[in-house]
């Protein structure tokens, strides 16, 4: 017989061993993700230029952030980008899944082609699209070729269309990710469910709404969360394509954080804005998770 004390000791030791296995990853995570995040919150309460001794700022960085006239438009642009980075790609991904799920010939090729944008660094994507959107880039050549020469313009420099042009780059980059996630998801659906729908006289549309869509709930949640974060926290794509221009029509919060920290050496305000951005992301992600939660 083993008495209770020995059992507890064994149990404690096993837990310690478990922690030991966890330690390397945990330490890296704490040092490079958790600690910087906490430190950013701390910095957001300071006035600090990076060199001179920091002074306590209280909430003044936050009041600055909220009274700054550039924040409102930047947040709005990020919300518009959600449409292009998250809503359209998820819709497109679902459509492609519905079309491809029957086992189309050359499936792997499709998957590779659509997933390719995910593999490319966004900086390279941005530079390539800058060429495509150029005054004599491929997009304008295409428009001219089909008789729409009157529409041609330098898209990323256009006051009204720059944000949309930027968003479409995101659509291009994100659609493949959604599609691959969804295609992987439908693999696990029991084929008998589709048979059941067919026996009831349901066609492909019915199959999609009755079986595929509910089965993909988890994948849709993940895809929306990833792409929404990408939209709200976008920086690199904007930085290399428009840098917020023309006339601040494509500024996003991430770009403002960068400018505050590195152009203006205002670490406190940059951190405050970063904290606000994080909270916005959390709000959106929570909303998505609540909206897609399975009713108990």
């Amino acid at each position, binding site marked *: 017989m083993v008495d209770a004390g020995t059992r507890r000791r064994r149990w404690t030791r096993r837990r310690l061993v478990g922690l030991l296995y966890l330690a390397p990853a945990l330490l890296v995570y704490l040092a*490079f*993700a958790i*600690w*910087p*995040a906490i*430190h*950013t919150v701390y*910095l957001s309460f300071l006035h*600090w*230029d*990076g*060199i*001179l*001794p*920091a002074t306590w700022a209280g909430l003044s960085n936050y009041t600055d952030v909220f009274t700054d006239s550039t924040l409102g438009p930047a947040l709005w642009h990020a919300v518009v980008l959600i449409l292009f980075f998250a809503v359209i790609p998820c819709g497109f991904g679902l459509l492609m899944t519905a079309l491809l799920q029957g086992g189309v010939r050359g499936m792997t090729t499709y998957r590779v082609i659509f997933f390719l944008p995910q593999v490319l660094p*966004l900086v390279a994507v941005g530079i390539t699209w*800058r060429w495509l*959107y*150029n*005054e004599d880039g491929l997009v304008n050549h295409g428009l001219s070729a089909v008789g729409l020469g009157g529409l041609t*313009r*330098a*898209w*990323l*420099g*256009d*006051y009204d269309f720059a944000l949309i042009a930027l968003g479409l780059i995101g659509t291009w980059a994100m659609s493949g990710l959604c599609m691959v996630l969804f295609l992987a998801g439908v693999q696990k659906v029991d084929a008998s469910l589709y048979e059941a729908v067919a026996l009831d006289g349901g066609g492909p549309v019915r199959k999609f709404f009755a079986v595929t869509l509910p089965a993909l709930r988890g994948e849709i949640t993940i895809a929306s969360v990833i792409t929404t*974060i*990408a939209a709200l*926290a*976008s*920086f*690199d794509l904007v930085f290399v394509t*428009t*840098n*917020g*221009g*023309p*006339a*601040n029509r494509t500024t996003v919060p*991430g770009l403002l*954080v*960068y*400018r505050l*920290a*590195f*152009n*203006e*050496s*205002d*670490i406190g305000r*940059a*951190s405050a804005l*970063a904290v606000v*951005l*994080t909270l916005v992301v959390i709000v959106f992600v929570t909303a998505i998770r609540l909206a897609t939660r399975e009713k108990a």
Partner: protein
Amino acid sequence: MRTKSIAAAAALVLALSACAESGGGSPAAPSDVSKDLTTEPVTLTLAYTDDPPTQALVDAFQAKHPNITIKGQQTPFSDYVKSIKLSMASSTPPDIAEYNPGAMRSLVPAGLIYDLTPYEKLYAWGDGFPASSLEVLRSNKDAKQYGTGGLYAVPGALSVLGVYYNKSLATSPPPATLAEFEQQLAAVKKGGTTPFSLGGLQVGGFQLWNALYNVLGDEGQYRDWVYGKPGATIETDGAKQAARKVVDWVAAGYIPSSANATADSDAQANFTAGKSAYLITGNWAADAIGKAMGDKVGFFLLPQVAAGDAAVASGASVAYSISSKTKHPNEAAAFLDFMRSAEAAKVQFDTGFMPVNNDAAITATGLRADIAGEFKKVVAADGIVPFPDFASPNMIDRLTAGTQGLLSKQSTPEQFLTSLQESWTQYHG
């Protein structure tokens, strides 16, 4: 992906915080200043980003002082401006660092770079360095007002903003007045060529406004504003006229409609490819433009309103500061002093810049002769003024976005200037 970039930003902020808080609190000045240099072998380190001219200047200096070795550490510009402040604040900073006002101003109140006034007196730098080139490197103790106070860097090569023209597209000789230039623009436009290439995505846009303001505005008012003199304003008649001129030129079709999507390098490429007749930029581009266009290109300063008015043009310098932690301040100062020598002048000119010592004899032909001749005019009139983004830390963003508003016909000259003044007041007010 994007979440990664946030994590990276957070990590950078952390890195910033890890090495900081070492600055003192009051400006530093060297003691024991002397022209007598050691005869022992010494090694100085030099952090810089602009090359040319830095390495060639170092080589020329070492040839003259064989016992002094200067070890260069070059960093690409965008990284330089982010890291130099930290490396100057570290316990082993470089002895000499290329000066960047935006990135390094806070080193002045922190006492991390020397006030060079004692050396200025010792070496009589007023002789050999154009007064305007030193003025812009002066700052008061809390680095809020410039053009006055201590001297924190010394120029090692100069540059000036002007107009490059394609000799086969811009028919007539360089214009003598602004009105004459506008006639030429109209003629070029009529001939079917868009007169300007313009990099509105980056700095090209506001440099056009800047060049016009140099011509149309009051030089003193402009200087006061850039230097942060209390009460100064950019909402002046001259600045308004300059902005209106930009708007007029857009309406007249002198500026390509794609300007806001065009980077400076693309604008330059368009110009050298013969897509436009004019390009406004500095002589730092002279080397590349000259190579691409040979003798088909010339250079003039944007002409004044009336022929014979004193020349005014924006210019900048590649300048060097001395760390207050250096063990060899006298040797470092000798390197700075070397910048006004005839040997340095040759290096500066040969590497595409304007020589610091304007009296040094220069022989050149073609584009380089054009630039040297025009530059001499401005220096003689003491008309080199700093660039407007010098005025406050986020001015460059206001300038870029504001000119983009003008170029896309979405904002008025008044709105543009109000936004600039707002940034100025936030920092200096």
